[in-house]
């Protein structure tokens, strides 16, 4: 099955990439855009759904500083 994992910086930890993007937007004419955060997307085919959570915990995310969200695509 195909799965999609979204990895986000944990709330409360400064995300300078998100801040940089947010600050660049007004100069491009986009006002009122707030709370921007930059994360990572990993897409993969797995044999068993049960593999996904341990895979995320061990490798795809650092649970100390990142949250992750698993979505089964097909």
């Amino acid at each position, binding site marked *: 099955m195909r799965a999609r994992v979204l990895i986000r910086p944990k709330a409360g930890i400064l995300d300078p990439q998100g801040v940089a993007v947010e600050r660049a937007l007004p100069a491009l004419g986009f006002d009122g855009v707030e709370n921007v955060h930059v994360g990572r997307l990993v897409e993969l085919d797995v044999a068993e759904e049960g593999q996904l959570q341990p895979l995320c915990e061990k490798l795809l995310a650092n649970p100390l*500083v990142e949250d992750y969200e698993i979505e089964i695509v097909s």
Partner: protein
Amino acid sequence: MKFGVLQFPGSCDEVDALEAARLVGDAELIWHRDRDLQGADAIIVPGGFSYGDYLRAGAIARFSEAMESVIAFARDGGPVLGICNGFQVLCEAHLLPGALLPNINLRFTSRQVRLEVSNAETAFTSACPAGRTLSIPAKHSWGRYHAGEQTLAAIEDAGQVVLRYAPGENFNGSVADIAGVCNEAGNVMGLMPHPEHAVSELTGGSTDGLCIFESMRLAVQGAAV
């Protein structure tokens, strides 16, 4: 005594680490696929971009065969020094508390920094000069040290904060100006700046990094007595 210096695809500072270690003892490179630590008395996990920093810096290197042996070596009390990418690998491997995050200034910054020795009694700082800062180069884009509130309080209380950026030197935004930490047992230490680039006046302008390798030699020889 003998140092073992790990080498991953993408490591770039292993040779300077090898040369710095050789000022103090013998040293050999250990290829990341090799489980054999070749009788090393102390291990150095060097700086660079192992696996291109893909996914997260140090996230993949942590699972290498050599690191499996290093983790066992560390759990048995063996001395392990992680420099820059090595620090990242040791945090990912949970041999050290906390994590490294992108610099708040979002720039790869390469500059000399002054470091305060916050704990001069560790196996990595016992030979460092008292009463003055160490001048050591830092070069990284992903070096902001982060630990949760409880972890931070615990490591401060336990004297696990080994090195701090002197006032004005903390360009990456590390919490509590932390530049280097050790584990609870005191045998594993990681730091973002590069002591191996500060061992020769000709090339580094400062030899303040040498005391870290010297401290490790003393710790190993003291333990052997």
